[in-house]
């Protein structure tokens, strides 16, 4: 009986103690039964806030909010290369039992029997308060709502206790899908307002540490930076009752240890291992590894087009031809990504995103372009990357640095810690850098609106201004709103061609979301937010 069995059989779980002093015989079986209903997740970092509307809530925080709150509607599930995949176009009710889309408004009928985790009923008043909160707290949540033209509290009208109507400001195809993302969740307004203060009307401080929703799980214990423990909400009405009773989410900073935990069976799921580990674990076959491309996501080399030398198109093209694409795919990604380069010369531009460019590694051409651009003896600049994703970024930049050196571009690598990365991006001063962006709403015009549009949002990291590009984007959005397919297709193709011609940023690849699970874990679902959905998992 090796060490682990010994610990397991001797360990007394919370459940067992709850059931009073269990006799030894029952003891181990109750404990084993607890094992099957408990999911152990290990990852590098944890949430800094449980409330999606919270100030500065990080990406792990999205996962906590997604599993503890409900939305009015959510996506149906479909299947894509063997993995359960959220269906972008088919929606179903979660808290709403009926949705009726009118010309300039949509009306939802709430499920009568839905209650919050503290037992109080879910009413239209809670829905309105939650939506008002989403558009008024500012920062990322409000920003995300605006993307679907949900901007003013006046749009949300309480018809009766169980009916809510949302009026449109303008026709926008993204409005309905935007109601299915994490932000417009339904919050227990009664409970939160009890703990709000005049300085913090929306009760952000309270919801930062306590979950006040109707979701399938509630957080029973949260030690920031160490662990989060979720318990199942027994009378959840948003969907079929999940199989997993208890989820333990532990932060294990060392990637080596996370892999060791998986291989020895002490952890059930981990999603942020280095690519090499995923490839090897898949070959070893001891674990289930799923790899699904980022929906609407692209890793790219960005350049600041406002100041020299990258304001010169020829210099940008020289960089595009100097990138060691295949070397990066092999040494940095280990093949776990979809190449966004090297499309055949005659390939037609498709009405989709992301799609590959026609660039390939051609150092001679790059050198010639650089000479034509007026830099015969090369130039010197810095290459920056996000230390938070050093596992991929560092080898990528080192390989790029080596190739650029061969055409005379001398670069020093500048590592920027995770949180400061966003502050550097907002300053828009980094001359040359690598970054990844993916939009929750899987539509090309949504991606281009944030990354290429002249309104210079934070995600337009290259400060790219082009009236022609703006025209294409706005044209496509309008066409989508009133369903004019031909104009929409022309707009999207126009955007993509201009983006590849001006090449303010050079797409490298579409990264994968990799998840490693024990053999006895089933029910993994890929969602647009790329986090885990505990509600669908089964174990044993």
């Amino acid at each position, binding site marked *: 009986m*090796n*060490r*682990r069995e010994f*610990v*397991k059989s*001797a*360990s*007394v*779980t*919370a459940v067992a*103690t709850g059931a009073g002093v269990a006799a030894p015989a029952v003891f181990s079986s109750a*404990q084993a039964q*607890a*094992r099957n209903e*408990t999911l*152990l997740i*290990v990852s590098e970092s944890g949430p*800094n*806030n449980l409330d999606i509307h*919270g*100030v*500065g*809530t*990080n990406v792990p925080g999205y996962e906590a909010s997604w599993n503890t709150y409900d939305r009015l509607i959510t996506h149906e599930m479909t299947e894509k290369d063997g993995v359960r995949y959220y269906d972008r176009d088919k929606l179903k009710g979660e808290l709403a039992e009926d949705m009726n889309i009118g010309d300039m408004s949509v009306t939802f009928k709430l499920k009568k029997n839905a209650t919050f985790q503290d037992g109080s009923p879910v009413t239209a008043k809670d829905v309105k308060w939650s939506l008002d909160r989403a558009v008024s707290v*500012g*920062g*990322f949540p409000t*920003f*995300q709502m605006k993307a679907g033209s949900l901007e003013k509290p006046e749009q949300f009208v309480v018809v009766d206790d169980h009916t809510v109507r949302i009026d449109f400001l303008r026709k926008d195809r993204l409005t309905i899908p935007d109601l299915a993302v994490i932000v417009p969740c339904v919050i227990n307004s009664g409970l939160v307002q009890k703990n709000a203060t005049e300085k913090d009307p929306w009760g952000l401080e309270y919801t*930062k*540490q306590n979950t006040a929703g109707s979701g399938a799980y509630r957080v029973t214990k949260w*030690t*920031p*930076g*160490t*662990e989060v423990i979720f318990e199942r909400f027994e009378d959840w009405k948003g969907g079929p009752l999940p199989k997993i009773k208890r989820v*333990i989410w*532990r*932060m*294990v*900073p*060392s990637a*080596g*240890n996370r892999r*060791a*935990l998986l*291989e*020895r069976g*002490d*952890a059930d799921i981990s999603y942020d291992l280095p690519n090499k580990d995923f490839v090897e674990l898949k070959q070893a076959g001891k674990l289930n590894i799923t790899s699904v491309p980022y929906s609407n996501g692209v890793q790219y080399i960005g350049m600041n087009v406002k100041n020299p030398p990258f304001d010169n198109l020829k210099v940008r093209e020289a960089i595009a031809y100097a990138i060691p694409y295949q070397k990066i795919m092999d040494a940095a990604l280990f093949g776990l990504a979809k190449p966004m380069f090297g499309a055949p010369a005659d390939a037609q531009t498709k009405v989709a995103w992301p799609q590959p460019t026609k660039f390939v590694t051609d150092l001679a051409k790059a050198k010639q372009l650089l000479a034509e651009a007026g830099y015969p003896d090369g130039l010197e600049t810095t290459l920056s990357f996000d*230390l938070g994703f050093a596992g991929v970024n560092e080898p990528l930049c080192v390989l790029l640095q080596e190739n650029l050196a061969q055409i005379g571009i001398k670069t020093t690598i500048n590592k920027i*810690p*995770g*949180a*400061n990365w*966003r*502050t550097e991006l*907002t300053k828009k001063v980094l001359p040359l850098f690598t970054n990844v962006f993916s939009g929750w709403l899987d539509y090309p015009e949504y991606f281009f609106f944030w990354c290429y549009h002249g309104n210079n*949002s*934070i995600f337009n990291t290259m400060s790219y201004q082009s009236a022609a590009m703006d025209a294409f984007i706005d044209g496509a959005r309008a066409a989508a709103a009133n369903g004019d397919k031909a104009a929409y297709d022309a707009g999207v193709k126009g955007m993509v061609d201009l983006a590849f011609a001006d090449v303010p940023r050079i797409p490298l690849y579409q990264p994968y979301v990799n998840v490693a699970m024990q053999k006895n874990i089933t029910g993994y679902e890929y969602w647009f937010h790329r986090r885990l959905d505990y509600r669908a998992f089964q174990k044993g």
Partner: protein
Amino acid sequence: MLKLIGSRLATAVPSLIGVVIVTFMLTRVLPGDTAAYFAGPAATAESIAEIRTKLGLDKPLPAQFVDYVSALAKGDLGSSLSTGQPVAAEISARLPASAELTLAGLILALAIAVPFGIMAAVKQGSWVDHACRLITTAGVSLPVFFTGLLLVYVFYFKLGWAPAPLGRLDVFFSAPETVTGFYLIDSLIARDFETFRAALAQLAVPAITLAIFALAPIARMTRASMLSVLSSEFVRTARAAGLTDTTVIITYAFRNAMLPVVTTLGMVFSFLLGANVLVEKVFAWPGIGSYAVEALITSDYAPVQGFVLAMAILYVVLNLLIDIAYGIIDPRARSEA
């Protein structure tokens, strides 16, 4: 003895003030911009400015310093951005974890290094002496995180002797209710030997990693002071009076030799607190070190300042304990303070 404590505290006050000033300056120099972080990814220039005023970061430095000190006086250490918790609560939850690990490492190191040092001194030039020097030097010549990962690889991954490096307690154990915050002691108080054994198992490998790193300074100091005491005149008198070797070595030589060792313990402890930061990262230990490292890397002021203050106070308390221990061992220290 009170005079001793009084004078030690008197000297500690200026250094505490120094620590407060230095931490304040250090955090203001960190590259990150808290306001921008607060404003979130989609912030516009003016929303950042608005949050900057809310946080009071736009005031001139001296004003910020006054705010900081006055808040400090009220015991409010501000709250951390990355974890969203008030720093004071975080530190009081995490300090025992780090203290338990560091103390375990120190006690383990003492238990190994002191006898080793004594044997090396008594049998100077013999194989024991060389072995002591080689082993302790080997222990300190590898970075502590590398030793940690190596031990995890061997004892957990390959042999399975050690439990999973998952922090202070196996996932399926609930922490004993906090009395001292030290899991080992609390579980004993609660008579819960299951948890005690599990907590001990979790503590073993990280404590050994730290101990290996602390062997060299302690062994070297014990050997050196033991050598000088053994060649002193009162040891010769004791031998001339026919006392047995054990009495001479233990009651006469060892007690005197412990004096310099006790003084270096202060240095070794703060040296270990530093190394502990890396060990916590490797063993996912919910200690104060990894917490400060996270905060430092993300330029999160409040936790860094809180952490350093906690360490400064710990350092002063530690030095006080060392002085008292010194006073107990050496009567001369008791008389003149």
